[in-house]
């Protein structure tokens, strides 16, 4: 099992918490009958989809001599390693050793196979350590399951440590500055007081003196997968339906990179839904993208030791809380603790 033994606190903190679900890539990245190599939590993986759509996620490491299975051949319900032909089924069992039939590798489950789910157009996987192989209970974000809410997924790959991408979401105040030149965050006060409000699944970090004008609140939700919920008003031009929301998740790719998943959602039905979807595809998606690029430019410009020399103030309480949660998680999962 690759998510493994030498996992120190620092390694886990840098490459993502174990024993929970994480998003990996959009579902569309793996067509029926296709394979795709991905990196997540600092390890290489193989996504493998059967022609009927069933998806599997295997450690990208042949149990014979560790060649990447992603260089191998898709055989429908198993993959054949290119190096010596060993065949691995989607549950990680060696199904054949063609060079030595009857070899004692056959029938043994030697490759890690992660539980996967597909949600809102994204692949989620459960990354358990050796003590926690059974998937944690997963409660999906309501905006992605509620039939009265409509969502578009936006996925992007950033050269940013995963925690910085999550911290950015627990820092609503940057909206009024970094995104001042944008279609949705130009308005509102540039001073604010914040508070933390605990919930049974995480916490809100919210302004006490302004609501519904800019990026004024965010909720961190830990429901088997870590995600945030937030809301930003649309200008009148976006038509009926009120503000748009964002469900955000981050895939820890490795120590320096992450994949960000932003579902832009709106509570709309009927002609209002159709109109929003039409405007989104034709005009609004580009504007949302421009805002996201402001975040990427800023976060990719942060020095690697950004969190080593800081002078925080009241607006950073949401980030401080986040770090404490993640740090405690990494400590409890580390084998050295």
């Amino acid at each position, binding site marked *: 099992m690759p998510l493994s033994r030498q996992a120190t606190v620092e390694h886990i903190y840098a490459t993502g918490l174990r024993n929970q679900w994480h998003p990996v890539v959009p579902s569309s990245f793996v067509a029926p009958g296709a394979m795709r190599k991905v990196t997540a939590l600092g390890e290489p993986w193989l996504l493998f989809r059967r022609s009927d759509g069933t998806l599997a996620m295997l450690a990208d490491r042949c149990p014979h001599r560790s060649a990447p299975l992603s260089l191998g051949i898709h055989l429908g319900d198993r993959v054949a390693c290119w190096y010596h032909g060993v065949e691995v089924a989607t549950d990680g069992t060696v199904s054949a050793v063609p060079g030595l039939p009857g070899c004692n590798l056959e029938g043994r489950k030697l490759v890690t196979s992660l539980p996967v789910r597909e949600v809102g157009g994204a692949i989620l996987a459960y990354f358990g350590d050796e003590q926690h192989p059974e998937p944690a209970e997963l409660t999906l974000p309501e905006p992605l399951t509620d039939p009265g809410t409509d969502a578009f*997924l936006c996925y992007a*790959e950033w050269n940013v440590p995963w925690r910085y991408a999550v911290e950015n979401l627990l820092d609503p105040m940057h909206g009024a500055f970094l995104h001042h030149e944008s279609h949705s965050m130009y308005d509102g006060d540039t001073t604010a007081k914040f508070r933390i409000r605990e919930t049974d699944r995480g916490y809100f970090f919210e302004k006490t003196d302004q609501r519904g004008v800019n990026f004024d609140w965010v909720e961190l939700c830990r429901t088997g997968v870590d995600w945030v919920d937030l809301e930003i008003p649309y200008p*009148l031009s976006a038509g009926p339906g009120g503000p748009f929301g964002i469900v955000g998740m981050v895939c820890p790719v490795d120590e320096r990179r992450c994949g960000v998943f932003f579902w832009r959602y709106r509570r709309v039905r009927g002609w209002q839904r159709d109109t929003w*979807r039409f405007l989104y595809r034709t005009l609004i998606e580009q504007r949302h993208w421009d805002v996201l690029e402001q975040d990427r430019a800023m976060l990719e410009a942060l020095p690697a030791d950004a969190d080593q020399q800081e002078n925080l103030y009241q607006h950073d309480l949401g980030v401080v809380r986040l770090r404490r949660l993640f740090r405690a998680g990494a400590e409890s999962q580390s084998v050295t603790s």
Partner: protein
Amino acid sequence: MTDTTWPYLDVHQSRTHDPTPYEYKLAATLEEVFTKDGHELTDVVRGLNSRQVHAPDGTPWTEESFRTEIHRLGA
């Protein structure tokens, strides 16, 4: 089959095709109507017709024809 495509940065992830000139025109006019005229379906139909932005067959919009067309475009 490999992740050598890093980083994936694609502005348009929701489109099935590049918008046509008609679609761009309709979208821009809808934004103007929503900004200046209101958010009701009656506002939309009146606003589009008063700006001479008609359905593809050239006829003025009705609530029914707008519902049908926007469903085709936004489903």
